[in-house]
Structure formats: structure tokens, C-alpha cells
């Protein structure tokens, strides 16, 4: 017997999207603020402007322009906004890697529309003048330092492995069931890793 087709999504109109933006609760604003900071933590722009602000704008434009459509009955708006931010930041990161290999460091992109209607992408105007060769080693140093930091602590080791390799395939609850480690201990380990990462990041910035 054939499965019935899934219920079709009803997508929000631009006016409904704007209404959802205007109705964002304070707690959701704080969540999106912190999430954007984390997604763009190691990104920077040549003009010194904040990448997370560019991310808010880029995502808003994509959703309002219909490039990303909000299935309003299925997904709460803050969650949908976050998932789109995550996706866009991931693309920026991938392009960053490609550019970095070509000697370009600008990461953060934003689509711009000129008064004459011309469209360009800021990152395409990136210069090769800002190359920092140490960037190539940064991510390797961080991954290696985190592995050393959790070494010998079974719960933190498991939590870090999950964050490094399994995050999209398994929930933390799943890891808890599979490994017989209490969920609260795993959550505490994730928090510890985040703090350790923040410290490593601060040390990197301090060293220029």
C-alpha cells in the first residue's frame, strides 16, 4: 500500500515574515544573538564590520525574497531563522576555506544591490592583501588543543567526539543511551568544552 503524500507546507508571505520578525520575544532575540556570534566567531570582514550583523541582514533578505521559504505551520520562526543562519554561515565558511587556499581571507559575504539595480557580492571584491598564513593552522591548533584538554576524561572525550563527528547524525540523548553516560554529565561536558574553546579563542586573539 502506498504511503499517503506528506502534508504540503504552507509558506509564509513576506508580510507574515515581517510580522514574525516584529513579534520576536526577548529570549529568542538573545538566542539568535548568541547563535550568530558563535556561527561567525572566527569570521571577519576587511572593513572591520561585524559579521554577525551581516548574517542577520543576509538571512532576512533571503527569507523575504523567497529564496528560503518559511513553512509557517511546521517550524517556529526563530528556529527557521536560526536554521537559515546556520546554513548561510556554513556556506560562507566553505567559501572561506576555498578562498583561503587561494590566498584570500575575507569570509563574510553580503549581497549588495546598487542604485542602478546591479547586484554584486562583497566577498568577490576581497583583496589578497589581508592574507594571514597562520589562519591555515588555526583550526588545526584548536582541534588538537581541545583533544589534549579532554584527554583522560572519558565523558568529555565522548562529548567532544560527538561535537566533532556525530552532531548532525545523533542527539546528545542518543549518545547518553548508547554510551550509558548520564545526559546531565554529557551536557556538563559540552558546557566545559565550550568554555575551553572560548579560552583558546581568546588566547589566539591575544596573540594576534
Amino acid at each position, binding site marked *: 500500500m502506498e504511503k499517503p503524500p506528506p502534508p504540503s507546507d504552507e509558506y509564509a*508571505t*513576506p*508580510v507574515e*515574515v*515581517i*510580522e514574525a*520578525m*516584529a513579534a*520576536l520575544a526577548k*529570549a529568542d*532575540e*538573545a*538566542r*539568535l*544573538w*548568541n*547563535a*550568530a*556570534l*558563535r*556561527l561567525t*566567531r*572566527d569570521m571577519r570582514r576587511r572593513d572591520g564590520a561585524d559579521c554577525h*550583523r551581516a548574517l*542577520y*541582514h543576509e538571512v*532576512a*533578505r533571503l527569507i*523575504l*525574497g523567497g529564496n528560503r521559504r518559511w513553512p509557517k505551520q511546521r517550524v517556529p520562526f*526563530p*528556529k527557521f*531563522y*536560526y536554521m537559515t543562519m*546556520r546554513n548561510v*554561515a*556554513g556556506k560562507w*565558511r566553505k567559501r572561506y*576555506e576555498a578562498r583561503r587556499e587561494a590566498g584570500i581571507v575575507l569570509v563574510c559575504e553580503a549581497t549588495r544591490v546598487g542604485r542602478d539595480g546591479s547586484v554584486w557580492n562583497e566577498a568577490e571584491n576581497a583583496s589578497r592583501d589581508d592574507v594571514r598564513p597562520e589562519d591555515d593552522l588555526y*583550526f*588545526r591548533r*584548536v*582541534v*588538537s588543543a*581541545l*583533544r589534549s584538554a579532554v584527554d583522560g576524561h572519558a565523558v568529555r572525550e565522548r562529548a567532544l567526539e*560527538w*561535537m*566533532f*563527528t556525530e*552532531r*548532525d547524525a545523533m542527539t546528545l540523548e542518543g549518545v547518553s543511551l548508547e554510551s550509558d553516560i548520564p545526559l546531565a554529565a554529557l551536557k556538563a561536558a*559540552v*558546557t566545559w568544552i*565550550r568554555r575551553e*574553546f572560548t579560552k583558546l579563542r581568546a588566547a589566539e586573539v591575544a596573540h594576534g
Partner: protein
Amino acid sequence: MAEEDAKQAYDRLILSLADEVMEMSDEELLATGEPMPEGISVKEMLLEAAREHPDWKLYVMKKEREAQLAKLPAARARIPRTAEGRRSLLERLLALRPDFGDLVPAVQYREFKDLPDEDVASCLAQLLALAEAEGLDVGDGDVTP
């Protein structure tokens, strides 16, 4: 760890840390999240982008209409819940007092069937307020002279 694996691990770590924020309770967020700087509003940044969109004007008009409706609480309470009920009540009201149609521009210049549902609700609120002022008996979504 191979270079490519390290890159992927690092990217997944970044995503994990961002996901963690979205899964936090309000209390956890308050305790561990970075506080938003004074004067910064994510909502305002999103609306800044929205103001560039052609439908921003439609949004503003809708808000104005809703504000008008909110000023008519007594009449609003009598508006039927369904779009069909509202349209039917407006039709009967106008049949009873055709002169009311001249008082509401949305009705005056358009074919009744062309009125969008939101305009029907707005017109109805205004006309129910008029009906009340003129002593017409307006029951539960019904109108009798």
C-alpha cells in the same frame, strides 16, 4: 588527524556550539549566554532589512488597520469568527442600511465581492459601531431592525 578531518571537526564544533544556544532554556541562556549590548536589538536589525522589501508598505497598512480595529473593542467583540460569517453580516447590515456604505470608503468605491477579508472585518467593526450608535439591535453576529 588529517587536515581535512580537522577542518570538518572544527566546522562541526562551531555548529554544535551555535546549536547549543538554540536548545538552552531561558534560564540557561541568561546564565551562560553573552548578554546583548545596550541599545542592540536583533528584532530592529531584522526589521531594518525588511524595510527595504516592497511589501513593507503592506505590513504597515495592515498594522494601521489592526490599530483602528483595536480602537473599536465593543463592535469588534460582535464580529463573527469566520470570514464567511463576517461577509454575510456585512451584506445584511448594508441591505438594512444602504446609506452606511457611503460612510466607509472601502465599500464605497469597490464591488463588495472584491473586498479582501481583512477589509471586511475592518468595515464591519466601523459599521457595527455606527449601527449601535443608531440604535439598531445587533445580536450575536446577527442584525435585526
